[in-house]
């Protein structure tokens, strides 16, 4: 009996009913995540109903050294939840209970399959919410957010998942259930939780997550500001930051992105704008009022030709509609597109945008720019038509060249979408061998057999050395088909 078959048998004992899938046709449902051009059919899908079942499945994988991949809602954009052909896909979508909301402690405890927005919904009656807001927050899960260290438009002021997850029950790839962090801050010992958040499922799977809740702001004001060019809009952003103001969000869209959004959702953004900013201020009413006056003036001084402000939820939704629909909207103006995710120091914005425009010009591939301008997180949308010979490759090349620009300016190849399978090959351009080797020391401590989400994040797996009493015969990486030559 193969390893996977043994895991399947164990999984059927643990998980009753429909929770174990080995039928080829049904396995296909899970062949990709949000990055749909990578597809692998897993050998087995297990959908546990509680933490114990989940831990049992991982233990079985550990025992038989079968690779496993965790999947939440499958919305990731870097192929982090791409299945392994000889491995098990562990789906957390049935672990969907908000275990407790503790407003007096400003905490909530949730299962990993809980939808991001549902945490805020559960906390809202107490005047609280969960701050990280990836744009997929209506469907993405907290477990996935933890794995990817998800950001969102409002992380400029409130930080990322790693600032808001303060505890987790966690199954290691060796099948041990450990508690990391907890209700109180600063657990003694190494900050293993800090290492686990953003590790893209390569260190194990969370079975319970404790998050910090944030007081709902007293007031929110959202501005929509039209500029003639991205340079002018960028100058306004710099002026706002230089004035010591940290808005909840500052988003920018360029002309092509605006046009696409306009066509898709008729968001009615300022006519003739070469760029728009969506700026959101939140907090105590008096603070917001003071910041609003300053932001309005700084935008005007930097060439804003139109400013609109929304103070109620309906008007706010209207302003955000264009921005939030941008990715899908480019699908209307282009048959195919790549969503890129890179980061640059904010001050490099004009230079990098000019360089992207030059690349676009010379390759004939259009690029629409949508980004979190406050923290320099670019989301260039590279538009192409797969049916035109050579365009797919040209778009791929341009998309990669944008990452090179980010690295050249001291930035990052990913700000929030993760490395996954998509960008593992770019890692050596950002980090040298010693850097990657050192990161993988952590991997070896958690997962000496290399069975947790293998092939993601790192371009080449590190050999972890012998673990006394565990290895027999061939190296486990060889056994599991992950590596052939040592």
């Amino acid at each position, binding site marked *: 009996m193969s390893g996977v078959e043994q895991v399947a048998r164990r999984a059927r004992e643990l998980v009753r009913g429909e929770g174990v899938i080995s039928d080829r046709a049904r396995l296909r449902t899970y062949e990709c995540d949000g990055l749909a051009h990578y597809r692998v059919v897993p050998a087995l899908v297990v959908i546990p109903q509680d933490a114990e079942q989940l831990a049992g499945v991982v233990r079985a994988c550990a025992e038989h050294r079968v690779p496993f991949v965790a999947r939440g809602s499958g919305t990731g954009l870097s192929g982090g939840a791409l299945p392994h052909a000889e491995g098990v896909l562990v789906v957390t979508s049935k672990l969907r209970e908000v275990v407790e909301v*503790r*407003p*007096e*402690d400003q*905490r909530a405890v949730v299962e990993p399959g809980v939808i991001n927005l549902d945490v805020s919904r559960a906390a809202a009656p107490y*005047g609280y919410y969960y701050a990280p807001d990836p744009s997929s927050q209506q469907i993405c899960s907290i477990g996935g957010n933890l794995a990817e260290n998800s*950001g969102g438009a409002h992380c400029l002021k409130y*930080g*990322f998942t*790693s600032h808001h997850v303060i505890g987790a029950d966690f199954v290691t790839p060796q099948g041990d259930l*450990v*508690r*990391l962090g907890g*209700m*109180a801050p*600063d657990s*003694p*010992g*190494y*900050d*293993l939780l*800090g*290492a686990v958040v*953003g590790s893209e499922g390569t260190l194990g799977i969370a079975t319970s997550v404790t998050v910090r809740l944030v*007081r709902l702001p007293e007031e929110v004001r959202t501005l929509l500001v039209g500029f003639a060019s991205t340079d002018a809009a960028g100058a306004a952003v*710099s002026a706002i930051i*230089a004035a*010591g103001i*940290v808005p909840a969000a500052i988003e920018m869209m360029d002309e092509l992105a605006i046009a696409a959004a306009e066509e898709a959702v008729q968001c009615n953004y300022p006519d003739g704008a070469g760029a728009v900013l969506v700026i959101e201020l939140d*907090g*105590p009413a*008096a*603070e*917001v*009022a*003071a*910041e609003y006056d300053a932001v309005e003036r700084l935008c005007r001084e930097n060439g804003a030709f139109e400013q609109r402000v929304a103070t109620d939820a309906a008007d706010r939704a209207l302003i955000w509609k264009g921005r939030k629909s941008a990715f899908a909207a480019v699908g209307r103006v282009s048959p195919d597109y790549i969503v890129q995710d890179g*980061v*640059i*120091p*904010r001050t490099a914005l004009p230079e990098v945008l000019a360089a992207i425009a030059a690349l676009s010009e010379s390759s004939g591939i259009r690029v629409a720019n949508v980004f979190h301008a406050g923290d*320099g997180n670019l989301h260039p949308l590279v538009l192409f038509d797969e049916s035109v010979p050579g365009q797919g490759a040209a778009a791929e090349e341009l998309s990669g060249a944008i990452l090179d620009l980010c690295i050249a300016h*001291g*930035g*990052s190849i*990913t*700000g*929030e*979408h993760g*490395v996954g399978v998509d960008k593992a090959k770019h890692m050596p351009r*950002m*980090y040298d061998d*010693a*850097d990657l080797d*050192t*990161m993988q020391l*952590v991997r070896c*401590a*958690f997962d000496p057999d290399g069975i947790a989400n293998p092939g993601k994040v790192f371009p080449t797996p590190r050999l*972890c050395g012998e673990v006394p009493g565990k290895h027999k015969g061939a190296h486990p990486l060889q056994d599991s088909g992950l590596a052939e030559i040592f």
Partner: protein
Amino acid sequence: MPTVVTPASTGDVAEVLRGGHTVVPTGRGTKLTWGMPVEPEVLLDLCAMDRVIDHQPGDLIVHVEAGAPLAAVQEVVGRAGQRLALDETVAGGTIGGVLATNASGPTRMHAGTARDLLIGVTVVRADGVVAKAGGRVVKNVAGYDLGKLMVGSFGTLAVITEAVFRLHPLPDVQRWVTVETDDPHALVQRVIHSQAVPWAVEVDGSTLSVLIGGRPDGVAARVAVVRDLIGGSVSDVAPAWWGRYPWKPGEIGLKVTCAISGLGEVLAAAGPRVRGSAGVGVVYAVADRAEDVHRLREVAARHGGTVVVVDAPDEVKQVVDVWGPVPALDLMRRVKEQFDPERRLSPGRFVGGI
């Protein structure tokens, strides 16, 4: 007595580590007595590595060497109206020392702790290999966040030689609302659930002080909200005890954490000499006797918290569990085993004898 070595560069540190000795890294030595006592062959004094390598005001980042005193970094970034949002809880400490011990003060409520501000780090491993993680941008999810693992690791995983931090703007105005109370817990709950957005809620015995910072108009309105809730007097200077530990050298100093709802019981159990970040559930206390540690640990544990003996005479450390129970200790040992298999970096100083 250890040999003191004073490297001038990351390369020098690597050369020292390749020498195969047991090593304790240090800056100004202000927290060198923290953790379990260690007698290394080499005391690696990073004070000569004290440069502010780069400050980019427009990007709100600063890149420093680990031996740079926190105060010196504040002076440099302060000229641009910015600050590194870390507190100098012990006068004279360096960046490396703050990172290694994860020392925090009142600012943590508003800006988080060192782990939240560190965006890039350069370390030298026990085997002399130089590695970096993170970078120079705030938003970055490429690869493992080794910086977080280094923060609070007490020099047991690698030697931190350089760090990149995100900065915050200096507030226009800061006001402290201070009140005497026999029920700090109730007042803390009132303030943290209000719309005042306090930047810090600190306790010192029976005194509670709330920091409000920001723009003048906003601060005035928020101060009014706080005064409505708890009363008290307003000052534009911090109380004298603000951001300092309550103990004197030679005393038993504790760090006590709890879920915020457990604060009342924890404060009661901690005795009169207690001070710290009540608003986030982290306070510091002075224990009269070693036995007090155990008793307080039971109370904190009931509220999801812990007690760590931050500083104490060596003879006290011999009879009391300095770090207390640590979940996931096996996993921590495996991490240590990977980074420092020969146990040459600060051996025995950290949790579980790591």
